[in-house]
């Protein structure tokens, strides 16, 4: 009996592996192999020679003031943008959740920004936030000083751009999460006399926590994507407040310095690896708990 069970598991494992195989081969070919090349280059002397130099390039990059600034800014931006988008989209989702049927049309609206092509988004933001743009016009009209949205205030423009593009996506994800909370939990709490706040903190938030982790991963992916708009809006060397890892890598790409680019990529990968690995392992534990 035990023998039979075991072989069934093995068979199951093989079937599962075979199902994932095409995806894994594709990923291997177009993502793992290229990343392997990147890692190899990060340990090589130069593009022309594949001479192994150990972690010398890493030392150089880690010493670089530009890299340090980029890392600091990237962490800062992630630190501000991720909570912002999670809180904002959760709040909107809670608002919509109060009466979903009546507000259904708004759900459509919030996904609208996804549809606009990048170049159109950039065009709009240029008109709104350039020195002579709409926002400064309004500010001056109100008797306030015009701000330098491409300089010192660029951080906020970038944040608004990111929130604007991705909040809708997260709202829908949060709505789904809220839907998954069994209604009888709320009813029971109401009978116990729990107020709105208590229901939120005791029931809603703990119940949607596992979903939040998935939303966070997607938010990070979208965050990396939002830098494409940033280059087009602010150029290769933007104000120091928004000089990010992506700029460091892109500028080394422009200068054909693939060695430094790959070191930067490997370091970023390492950090994400630790963070996301942590997230996923938490998620897996949750799964285990449910079984």
């Amino acid at each position, binding site marked *: 009996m035990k023998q039979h069970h075991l072989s069934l598991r093995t068979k199951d494992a093989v079937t599962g592996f075979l199902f994932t195989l095409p995806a*894994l*081969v594709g990923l*291997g*070919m177009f993502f*793992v*192999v290229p990343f*392997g*090349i990147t890692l*190899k*280059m990060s340990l*090589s002397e*130069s*593009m*022309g*020679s*594949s001479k192994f130099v150990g972690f010398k390039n890493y030392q150089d990059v880690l010493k*670089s*003031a*530009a*890299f340090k*600034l980029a890392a600091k800014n990237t962490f800062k931006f992630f630190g501000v943008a991720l909570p912002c988008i999670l809180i904002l989209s959760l709040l909107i989702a809670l608002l919509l959740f109060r009466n979903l049927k009546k507000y259904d049309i708004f759900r459509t609206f919030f996904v609208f920004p996804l549809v606009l092509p990048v170049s159109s988004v950039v065009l709009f933001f240029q008109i709104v936030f350039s020195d002579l743009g709409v926002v400064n016009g309004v500010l001056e009209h109100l008797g306030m000083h015009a701000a330098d949205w491409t300089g010192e205030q660029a951080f906020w423009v970038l944040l608004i751009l990111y929130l604007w593009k991705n909040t809708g996506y997260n709202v829908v994800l949060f709505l789904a999460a809220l839907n998954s909370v069994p209604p009888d939990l709320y009813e029971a709490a109401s009978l116990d006399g729990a107020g709105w706040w208590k229901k939120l903190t005791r029931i809603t938030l703990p119940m949607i926590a596992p979903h939040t982790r998935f939303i966070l991963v997607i938010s990070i992916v979208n965050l990396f994507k939002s830098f494409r708009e940033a280059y087009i809006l602010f150029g*290769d*060397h933007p104000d*120091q407040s928004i*000089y990010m890892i992506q700029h*460091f890598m892109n*500028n*080394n*790409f*422009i*200068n*054909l*310095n*693939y*060695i*430094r680019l790959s070191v930067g990529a490997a370091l970023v990968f390492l950090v994400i690896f630790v963070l996301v690995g942590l997230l996923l392992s938490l998620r897996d534990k949750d799964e285990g708990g449910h079984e």
Partner: protein
Amino acid sequence: MLTLGLLLSALAGCGSSTEMPDSSTDGMPDTSTPETDTDYSGFELPEETDTLVLYSGNWTQSDIYQKAIPIFKNLYPDVEIELKNMGDEEYVNTLRTEIPAGKGPDMVLGTSFYDLRDVYKTMEARVFDDLNPYIAADADFSLDDYIKGIMDAGVFKGERLVLPFSHRPMILTTSAELLAEEEITAEDLTDFDRFVAVCEHYRGTHPGKYFMDEGLNRLPEDQQLTLFRELFLYSGIQFFDYENRTVVLNREELKKVCDFIQLYDPAAVESERTAEEKKKLKSLGTWDLILKRKCLFYSTQSAGLSLMMTRYTVAKKGETPVTVVMPDISGAGCTEINFFIAIPKGAKNKLNAWRFLKVLMSDEIQGDSEKVMSIYSPVLIRATKEIIEAQGYPDEEMDALAQSLNAIDRAYMFPPIQWIYLRDHMMPYLTGERDFDACYKDLSRELELYIDE
């Protein structure tokens, strides 16, 4: 399994496909030893192939190639040239991807203002061949034929990674009569400090006039920024030591140059001019600026040697033209390199690339003042002289110009971003809004970050 196999072959491949053809350079000292000390005797020119692959963006490159390809075809009829014309964005992105991947064109004719935006940083990435062994192995080619001060800009840690092709010097035109009126001697125009003093004196005694004019007074304000850029550039301040990744900008030198640029002061000049005068100036031909005594020098840095129209006018109207290269802070002249040539390490047809490079550096191309060098100046010493003489004034003064052009001792491939930093951080000082040291501090911080990127 397939993935693993591919991984291995790709990893093995990317090393070998970009291997250099020459092994002799391995023994080369990699720091600061002058290139002449190195022995390249083990090097042989790369082997013969039957194609040459060139890429061209929408830039003047295509004009240059159009002229050079027939010459090359004539010399090597068996070699097939694959010239790929591309859109700008495509060209730039293709170069950036293919060259590090060990592919791409056999030879690059690049610019520092568009495709390779900071050539020095690209040199550091070691994606180009050292040209010194090629030069040493080829008896037909001698570096002595070219302006040394300019050619040396292409050397990085002892390796000659790029070869400057053309440059844009700052040539000032005035007349001997005007100089005499202002009591300015020839020596005043060969030393930076004395040059500045002369300009300062002129501004003090002529409130409504610029010491240097390009006809800019008729253009909107932001166009005047170009002159600021030129003055910064041609004063020859050193910003970076790329080899050691450090900023070498000297505070005193920068202050000196900034104060010089401040003399230009368009706001003050314009305020001294009446509306009537401005109107009159507008109707004035550009070449008349010197003859009508509207400025001290007429600058033609954006034009090539063959376009010195002011000089013609001055001579025609009976005055003696004086044409000089603006002195830089180190004494001789400084210039901006606009095109350079490099052979990528991954090139497949290096011998043909080298041959094509020689065509580009030959008299026929360097001396072509009508097309190729119509708005640039050549780096070939003979060609500089030829073009100047071809203007029909083979007099002493022109000899002097050729001499001072060939004596240029500093050349830059000025990255656009460097100018943006200068403009953003030093303009508040130039306009009197901010104190010098505050501006200098911000600029230094920005430069430190940039060089260490």
